[in-house]
Structures are given as C-alpha cells and as structure tokens.
C-alpha cells in the first residue's frame, strides 16, 4: 500500500473507533488484529450511518413541506 506510516496509524485509529480492529500493546509497538465480531461491528456502523442519513432526510422533508406551505 502506498500510504505513509502516520496515515496508516491514523486509519487504524479510525478502524479501532469503529471497532473493526482491536489493539494491544507489546513493548513499544501496538499490534492490531481484526475484530472477529464482524456482524456486531457492522451493526454498530449501520446504526450510526442511519442516524446521519435520516437526520439529513428529516431536514430535506421539512424544508420541502415548508416550501409547499409557502407556495399554497
């Protein structure tokens, strides 16, 4: 992969936050392993995804309703 070391480290932090990987310390190194609870991880991710998507939908629907009222 053509990605710099700090970038990989940053990506791994993201994956860890999303619980896709687990980290453990070994001396000065941090070792990352794939979290085997794939479905649980996926569910957590989808849960956050739908929060974001539906918040945007709500905003768009309410704007459309407000515009319709204005033009009536």
């Amino acid at each position, binding site marked *: *992969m053509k*990605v710099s070391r700090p970038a*990989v480290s940053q*990506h791994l932090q*993201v*994956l860890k*936050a*999303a619980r*896709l990987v687990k980290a453990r310390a070994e001396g000065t190194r941090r070792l990352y392993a*794939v979290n*085997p609870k*794939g*479905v*649980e991880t*996926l*569910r957590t991710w*989808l*849960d956050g*995804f*739908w*929060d*974001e*998507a*539906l*918040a*945007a*939908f*709500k*905003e*768009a*629907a*309410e704007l*459309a*309703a407000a515009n*319709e009222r204005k033009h009536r």
Partner: protein
Amino acid sequence: MTEQRMSGGTDPNTVRKSMSVKAPQAIAWRVFTEKMGTWWPLAQYKIGKTNAVDAVIEPRVGGRWYERGEDGSTCQWGSVLTWEPTALLVLSWDISADWQYDATLKTEIEVRFIPEGEHATRVELEHRHLDRYGARREEMRRIFDTEGDWGRVLEMFARVAAA
C-alpha cells in the same frame, strides 16, 4: 435527530430508527423516494469509483436502487421489494462486506410512513437480516486479511472519519 426504539430490546441482526418529521405523509414519502439524491450523504456513502451525483429508486416492485456517478455510470445498491405509496417501502440492500454490490446478500430496509395528523409523519426504519452477513463472516475475514482490499476498507472509513 433519530431515537432508537426501546421496545423489544436489542436484536443483534436489526437496526431500528424512529422519528417524527414535520411534513405531511405524501411529502415525506416523495422526498424519501423521489429526491433521495438531495439528502443521502453521497459524499461519504457511495460505492462507485467516480463522484456520485444522485441516488435513485425506480418506483415499482423489482425496480433498481442505485447511485449515479458524475460520468453517468450507475452502481446498484439493491432493489425495491415493496412499493406502497405513500405508506410502505421495502428495499433490499445488497452491499457486501467489501462494499461491492452482491445481489445474493439481500439485507432488507423497511420504511413506514405513519401520518401524525395533517402536518407530521412518523418515519420508522428497520434494517434487518444483518445475520445474512454472518454467512459471509469468513469471506469478510479473508478480505480483511488481504492487503489489497484493506486499502478499500481504509478509504471507506477515512471518508466516514473525515465527515
């Protein structure tokens, strides 16, 4: 914001969302189905290689659900399983663990539009059958173990993180 429904505890294979929208049922339905491209976070959640400019649901049972790229290309996400305007929509979501379209996956998204008087609608969304990813858990692990595909996964999550 959306809130999670508390009844029924936590089903590990289902994600449920419920919220009240200050829009009549017909408008809520129309914005969800006809104007998805105006609210779907396309910058982050798309699978094509080019920038996505629209998200489209073909308005009939069996219709395709897809993203359209700025170059005119389309990438399918799923299809329409139930089409009952302006109350009930069921879509299949066939995006696999490696973020590719896979017609055999068939997780389901049910969206109910329930009128709350004249000016508001309760929108209930259920994304279910997530266990269908379970059969692919081994495949998912292989993907994660293969360096080439890591790049794609990392790129996906970087986009989420940057949002």
